[in-house]
């Protein structure tokens, strides 16, 4: 990524942090505020980072995936349901239930990925429409099963929402990590997301698999000619994309809050696509862009702590709905390309006809 883009990202993050520091310094020491903002930023950027990685894998292989939002929502629900099922019905301890919940979320994501792969690769459906089908299907499935499993009298939980096994604990509970600032506040999926950024970079740019993936996304015919199985490469990468979106979904119900709300992903899947585009379809760039959106969301969360310290001249900042506009406006701004255009993989969105 060139300096202009990194400069922009740094500038926005510094600006967002400064607003909170300027308002909050009357009550808390500045380092405390910065550490709190940094931890919130990394934490709320988690689903965006994973969503953007999900997009990178799918689109590097030539399949546009706007169904990430729906994949996240489905996984958030089934991961949550799985954790509760193991905890309440099968009487597992909280921690194993949560870990199995994450596994189920990833599997649910993989299934949605498989559906998207079948639609766009086998049936050659317009990929944006295929993604939309997944988004709508996700709303229907999660809404239906949420009502059917938790609010119907004859369901396995007898009509009331059982007590959830909580959320994944922060790594500060591990003794030798307890005193590391920022890190000690983070929870497992947030840390896993960062690790996956580096693993993805390695896989995509340093392995034969990555080279083949990119070949299939840039010039499928050439890849086919040298004996790469285009359909197989695309299928596997779209399923990997689904798994990553599934992990992002697990963040919502197993790490962030111990509950499920209909439509709770709230556009994060779409924002991660903007992060992926701004990050030029690279894992590191996508992560940096996700942090910008994370900082914008952290601004909203942290300003709530200092609500009464906001000066009257900035009274609009008191309204969470108004501050909450920042990530969405940033997304649109970034997509204009005024901070520099990016180039999508050449065969992105095109079905391959032999």
């Amino acid at each position, binding site marked *: 990524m060139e300096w202009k883009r990194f400069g922009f990202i740094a500038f926005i993050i510094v600006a967002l942090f400064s607003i909170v520091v300027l308002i909050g310094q009357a009550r808390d020491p500045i380092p405390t505020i910065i550490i709190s903002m940094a931890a919130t930023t990394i934490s709320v950027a988690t689903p965006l980072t994973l969503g953007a990685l999900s997009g990178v894998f799918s689109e590097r292989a030539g399949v546009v995936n706007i169904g990430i939002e729906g994949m996240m929502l489905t996984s958030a629900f089934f991961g949550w349901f799985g954790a509760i099922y193991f905890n309440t019905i099968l009487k597992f301890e909280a921690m194993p239930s949560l870990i199995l919940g994450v596994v189920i979320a990833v599997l649910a994501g993989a299934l949605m990925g498989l559906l998207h792969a079948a639609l766009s690769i086998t*049936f050659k459906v317009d990929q944006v429409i295929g993604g939309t089908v997944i988004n709508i299907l996700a709303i229907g499935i999660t809404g239906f099963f949420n009502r059917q499993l938790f609010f119907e009298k004859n369901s396995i939980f007898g009509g009331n929402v059982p007590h959830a096994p909580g959320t994944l604990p922060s790594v500060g509970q591990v003794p030798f990590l307890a005193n590391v600032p920022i890190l000690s506040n983070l929870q497992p999926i947030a840390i896993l997301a960062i690790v996956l950024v580096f693993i993805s970079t390695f896989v995509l740019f340093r392995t034969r698999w990555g080279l083949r993936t990119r070949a299939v996304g840039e010039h499928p015919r050439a890849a086919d000619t040298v004996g790469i199985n285009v359909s197989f490469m695309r299928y596997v990468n779209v399923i990997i994309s689904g798994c990553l979106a599934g992990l992002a979904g697990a963040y919502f119900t197993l790490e962030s809050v111990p509950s499920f709300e209909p439509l709770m992903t709230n556009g994060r899947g779409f924002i991660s696509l903007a992060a992926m585009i701004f990050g030029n379809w690279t894992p590191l760039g996508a992560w940096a862009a996700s942090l910008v959106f994370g900082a914008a969301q952290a601004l909203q969360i942290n300003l709530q702590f200092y609500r009464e310290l906001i000066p009257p001249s900035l009274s609009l900042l008191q309204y969470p709905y108004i501050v909450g*506009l920042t990530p969405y406006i940033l997304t649109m701004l970034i997509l204009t*390309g005024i901070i520099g255009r990016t180039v999508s993989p050449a065969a992105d969105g095109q079905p391959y006809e032999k």
Partner: protein
Amino acid sequence: MAEKEKTSSSQPRISGWLRSGLNTMLVPALAVLTAMIVGGIVIALAGGNPFAAYAGLIEGSFGSLNAISETTVWATPYIFAGLAVAFGFKGGLFNIGAEGQLAFGAVMAALVGYGLPLMGVDLPAVVFVPLTVVAGIIAGGIWAAIPGWLKAKFGGHEVINTIMMNYIALNITSYLLNGPMKDNNPLNVVARTPLIAESARISTVFPDYRFHWGFILALLVAVLIWFILWKTTLGFEIRTVGTNPDAARYAGVNVSNIIIITMVISGALAGMAGSIEVTALNYRHELGFAVGYGFDAIAIALLGKNHPAGVVLASLLFGAMRNGATRMQFNTQIPVDIISIIQALILLFVAADAIVRYIYHIRIQQDRLVLTRGWGG
């Protein structure tokens, strides 16, 4: 191929139309049927009786005069929003933002409808009703013009931008309906506007039924959209940009302008869905009312093959399902959310028509719908 042309030219035109119409409807009809069958399996898996469920659905949507009236009430916003998405598709634009445009249109219509009397402006219904409706149309048009302009000027992809505009609309409406525009009635705890003035309301057609003139208006607008798309130069240019922007540019069409105009008309239609709901049905805007219309509208546009007549038929079907779902839930305790699954499956089978063609061994080929093209813009 040659044989087919010969038979169609030797037959009277009306019969040719009828045949091509039936052929066009074949795959969507089978898609609906397949979706209902799969939906029935889901109901059975969830422990319900699919036959009782569908019987309840039909009873609730067409079982009485009142049920039919309610179906048209449900279908009205679907027609406007479905036309909005279909119009965008015709111009090669995927407007996922109908929900935000609808919400913003509804808020502005409500603001005009209750705000003007508060300011002491007293207008007769002949002026006040159109003014309120137009406020929503303009608001929806502006809301869609922004992503349209961003697309035409910078190539920012409308799929993401219209979705972002949805969330911006949701946040702004939440702010307005919880704050400056909140109904101050002491009994009110909900985020909603005050009622609009009597003289800003569209009346029902018959007493005792909620069937209102907004539905008739929706049908007229569908005809108007058909006229614009197929009988005017503008419509020709829009369709050309939709099928091949390069060819359109080569032929001297100002593609950027057409993109913005297409988005504005599309947004105006979605905004009209909002203002008609405010003026003819709810007489106010309430938070959360607009949720889901954007995605439903996409399914309706695709099911209706992006043709106004198809959109009207698909809207009636979706309206009937939404309306009948309440009776179905009452009769069989199956959550109304099953309708969302069936609608998603309909969209799935319409989009992936290869599946339907394979299942039912259909060989009649049709032109592929050109809908979107990657991120390139």
